[in-house]
């Protein structure tokens, strides 16, 4: 993360990041995460309201980051996946646990974890990560 100790940034994003709160357009029934305040499909006809995601979904693709950006050095290596949420949108998120057991198609559920310390002041960031749902056979 390029930002250093940007408290307003984290404050602004906290609700979405901590509770997976996005939005839903009730005109076209499209869900948005991160939240959009404007439905690009319906434009002025859009009816946007808050929508809370369950955080359950499946892995579309994943990678183990071994050379991290600034701020993530202490947590390397870590796994990042693109996850398709059950409600129908996708996001990027870290997957905890053994990278060897992660695969495309595996189901995941959310967990609340520490993310990283930002900048020399060490503002600690928390948020949602994901863990594999146990005893699930991989579905491609």
């Amino acid at each position, binding site marked *: *993360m390029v930002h250093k100790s940007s408290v307003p940034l984290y404050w602004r994003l906290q609700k979405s990041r901590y509770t997976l709160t996005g939005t839903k357009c009730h005109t076209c029934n499209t869900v948005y995460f991160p939240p959009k305040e404007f439905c690009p499909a319906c434009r002025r006809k859009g009816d946007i309201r808050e929508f809370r995601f369950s955080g359950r979904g499946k892995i579309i693709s*994943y990678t183990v*980051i071994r050379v*991290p*950006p600034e701020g*993530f050095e202490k947590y390397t290596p870590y796994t990042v996946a*693109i996850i398709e949420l059950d409600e129908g949108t996708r996001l990027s998120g870290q997957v905890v646990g053994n990278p060897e057991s992660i695969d495309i198609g595996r189901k995941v559920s959310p967990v609340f974890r520490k993310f990283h310390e930002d900048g020399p002041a060490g503002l600690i960031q928390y948020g949602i990560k994901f863990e594999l749902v146990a005893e699930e056979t991989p579905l491609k």
Partner: protein
Amino acid sequence: MTRRVAVVGVGYTKFGEHWERSLRDLSTEAGALALADSKLDGKDIQALYVGNMSAGRFIGQGHLGALAAEYAGLLPIPATRFEAACASSAVAFKNACIAIQSGKYDVIMAAGAEKMTDLMGTDAIATLMGAGDQEWEASVGLTFAGLYALIARRHMAVYGTTREQMAMVSVNNHKNGVLNERAQFRYEITVEQVLKSAMISDPLTLLDCSPITDGAAAVILVSEEIARKLDNPIWVLSTSQATDTLALHNRASLTGLNATRVAARKTYQETGLSSRDIDVAEVHDCFSINEIIALEDLGFCEKGQGGKFVEDGKISRDSEIPVNTTGGLKSVGHPVGATGIRQLADLTNQLRGRCGPMQVTGANTGLALNIGGSGATAVVSMLANGDAKPKR
């Protein structure tokens, strides 16, 4: 295109780690090389368009247009900076073409420059991630290699693309780059070396990734009336730009870049040509998987067959579609804001027949693809020496 536009001069600095030289030194050198190549004079230039991704963070410098114009001795002409991540300078090129087509200007210098090695390792990686979504990708620890690793893993799962096939992209580009005096890395590598180099972001290793580079490139673009008076102009047949979601995860498919497909379709429509009519191509290989995907999205092979296309040797200098004949981003280096113009400079020299030992025999029509971020911006340009006609 209404009013024709031609490239009449090209130049770029040695690419690499220029610890002793600043961004202004590099951009001035590239501009002087392009101007000398064009046989025009500095006072003929009416506007300067500069592509740059992130000088504000790499070196704390904004206001690149004025900086480059002053040091190149081009005051007081209008000078403007363009930003579209790694596609910054192709976007500058495209807008220069539009400005000449409009009749506003007759001679424009389009340049690109990036000074990346002033930042240390993880800081440079974080800066490059400015090309992605800061709030929703960078925040979970994604890097640029990470984004293309997500694409690679999905392409492998869906189409059976192998790590060996990806490695062959780097092998081909290094082989070509050996002959390029301005390339950052001038040595051959093997598939085994690629596979055994340090893992950056599974499945991509160090040698699947283009490097951190300092460098600058420039071209001189002119209107048809001026081009007719100069030697061997190379015509811009089309330059098309398209956009996709900033974050990779917001796209329905990870195995292709829709912005590339849209820009390519527009270019083929505008020119009446197809991928079969292209003699030589510059294709954005920031990561090896991206060249494989680009070969598919540009129509050189079927979707999913890019890996096999490379494995079958169809991109080498003497094959059906020579790709990245001067080394690509992998070997020449990838100063992000300069790459788009560097590609167009090399393509121009191929079409002029001035590539020496790197020359593709009889190259008349060429295509360049420059990509920004994980594919949120794509610019496809087609150039030709004289008239380009469909081959079949």
